[in-house]
């Protein structure tokens, strides 16, 4: 502490006993705070005086024992001018340094991008590996139960067709050697989900009647099974669910709004329906499908065929037969064009994937 007497400083004095408050003048020298407040003369040892952490535009406070406080009249008076030490001085200096502020803006934006692109996917993968498979099964069963009735109806495929598909599925599963035996479920979804397939958490593959009707052969559906089994083998569904809830959690924490935390169990059904895998996930699942199809003695080009059938604006033979004629079927489909082709919205880059499958097949 400097022994040179500081110039006096105007302040407001509140004694902490009543709210009246008087004008005061104070000076600090030799570790002693001396003040004249109204008619009174006050003296405090600086060892007992607490200085408030400086904040831009807020007058500095010197808190003395027994609840009294001097509030500087001039908001520009800083601890250095008074010759006192103040807590959190480094934060205050950072806040007042333009370079530091610009750096903070850049760093926060960079942090957001890295968290979204790198850190959260990595963390999602690590956690998904450690989630017990039984927990995943519970989550998948609960999610399917809440989607049944809202999004999915019971299947209307003939029993023999389902048996043939089940046989193909079982053959692929035998070759896949997954830690838990995956199940196959059939559902119908006219509009919301359409011609699509889904890998539920816990390893259940869901396929819609609409997808089966859209494709021209049951082997094409088997190719879709192989692709979904790829998602199961890599635990993509659980990873993406964890990532999406982590993103909301972090966003909520940053914006100071913890009420935004939704529970995974409540959000899972809605997320599943709109879940979009990354390009890398799709490629991993496709690679897995190519391998599985080859082992089963089927051509990887079947996956390309099924993708083409799903994304094509034309009707399949089965669909055309159901509507009476190919023209009528196409007309109905164009009429629904305002709705997004469901499979496309959850499976991006479909043309690139078709080309890849054809290349592998050759």
């Amino acid at each position: 502490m400097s022994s040179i007497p500081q110039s006096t400083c105007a302040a407001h004095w509140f004694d902490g006993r009543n709210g009246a408050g008087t004008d005061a003048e104070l000076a600090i020298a030799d570790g002693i705070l001396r003040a004249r407040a109204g008619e009174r003369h006050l003296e405090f040892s600086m060892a007992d005086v607490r200085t408030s952490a400086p904040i831009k535009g807020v007058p500095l406070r010197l808190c003395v024992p027994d609840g009294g406080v001097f509030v500087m009249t001039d908001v520009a008076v800083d601890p250095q001018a008074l010759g006192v030490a103040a807590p959190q001085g480094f934060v205050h200096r950072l806040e007042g340094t333009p370079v530091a502020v610009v750096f903070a803006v850049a760093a926060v934006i960079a942090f957001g991008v890295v968290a979204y692109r790198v850190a959260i996917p990595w963390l999602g993968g690590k956690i998904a590996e450690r989630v017990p498979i039984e927990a995943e099964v519970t989550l998948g069963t609960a999610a399917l139960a809440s989607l049944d009735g809202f999004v999915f109806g019971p299947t209307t495929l003939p029993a023999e067709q389902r048996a043939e598909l089940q046989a193909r599925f079982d053959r692929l599963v035998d070759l896949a050697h997954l830690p838990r035996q995956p199940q196959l479920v059939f559902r119908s979804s006219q509009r919301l989900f359409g011609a699509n397939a889904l890998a539920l958490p816990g390893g259940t593959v869901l396929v819609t009647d609409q997808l089966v009707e859209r494709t021209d052969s049951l082997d094409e559906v088997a190719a879709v099974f192989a692709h979904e089994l790829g998602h199961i083998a890599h635990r993509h569904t659980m990873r993406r669910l964890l990532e999406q809830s982590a993103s909301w959690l972090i966003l909520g924490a940053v914006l100071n709004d913890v009420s935004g935390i939704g529970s995974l169990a409540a959000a899972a059904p809605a997320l599943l329906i709109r879940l979009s895998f990354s390009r890398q996930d799709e490629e991993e699942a496709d690679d897995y499908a190519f391998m599985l199809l080859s082992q089963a003695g089927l051509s990887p080009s079947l996956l390309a065929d099924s993708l083409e059938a799903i994304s094509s604006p034309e009707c399949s033979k089965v669909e055309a037969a159901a509507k009476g004629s190919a023209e009528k079927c196409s007309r109905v489909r164009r009429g629904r064009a305002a709705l997004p082709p469901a499979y496309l919205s959850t499976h991006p880059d479909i043309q690139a994937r078709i080309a890849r499958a054809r290349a592998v097949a050759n």
Partner: protein
Amino acid sequence: MSDAPSQILVTGPAASAANATTDTVPLGTLQANGRSHLQLAFTGVAGDYFRIWIVNLLLTLITVGLWSPWAKVRKRRYFYGHTWLADANFEYHGNPVAILRGRLIAAAAIGVYWIFENLVPSAGPWLLAVLLCGAPWIIARSLAFNAANSSHRGLRFRFSGTQRDVALAIWPLALWLVALVAGSGDTLDFIEHPARFFGQLAAINATFFAMYPYAVAQIRRLTVGKSAWGDQAFSTTMRTGSVYSIYLIGVAVSFVPLVLGSVVGFFMGMLVGAIAVGHAALAVTIATIFVAFVSASTFIVWTAYNRSRMTNLVLSTSRLSNIAKLNSAISASVLAKLYALNLIAIVCSCGLLIPWAAVRITRYRLQAISVEIEAPLATVTAMVTQDPRATGEELSEMFGIDLAL
């Protein structure tokens, strides 16, 4: 925006008023009958607050959240310190270490809850029971912590409500949660008897919506009625009926953008559908933007109406002992315009304009609040003395739970 001194708006600080310039501070307008009329003033500047916000956000990110209590205290001290009534500003005394301890405990509790809810679904009802028993205690502690750590003119505020008081105020909400869990049954029920399922759900929710304004009135009366500044207690004459009319008119007012939006959306959908045949992606994009626009407008109208009217009602029916009367005149339409502009600014700046929005909203809300003091300020303030129970020291030793109510 939760950094704004919500506590100030609910209880104490609404207790006096002033100008922010430091050289000449008028003590309000002294009226002929010796009363003074004081206006709250907010002197925060968006640019200054932005610097504090971004630097502390970065420090919070670097320290994996450990800095967040210090960040919170700095941000809150910025808002309190820039809120002036007469010649004195407010001060927030929250102890970051206590807040950190509270947050660590809360994070652990959320973690346990998440694990149980997702991995042991059968534990659901038990978790709910724990939550219901703990909620009144947490709310009471949080209100007490915030009040005890706020001061004006060297005197602390105080909230003396107990968990029993809180439980008596919020019981309709607890009942609703229990009814939802008990009444939801299993999903098979829904597929087999959809009418009964929805009927049950509708009945439970209708009862809840009918009870909600009652619970709001109770908790607001409790927050004001059990608060004190120094040794002077606040009191309220708010009637439950006034809260009901605010909620009913609020619903009616919010229906305007919803109905208008739906009608416009219907015709626009037909038009876009006709033009964009075969361009599904374009049509979906347009529809999504429109739905977002209608939802945002409805939400803004509801929030602006509800917040302005509730603040006006709560403050205008409150007084500090027999010495001061509070008043608030926040306009719903001005608030709605502020919200709309803030929302656009925040979305377009990816969140970087949050500080700007927070400062604008706080400035408008605070300058609409005034205090009528029934004697010259100097005489009145000298009457208010420190309540020994209001030091806040023993509370700082507790964990600093802080809820935005």
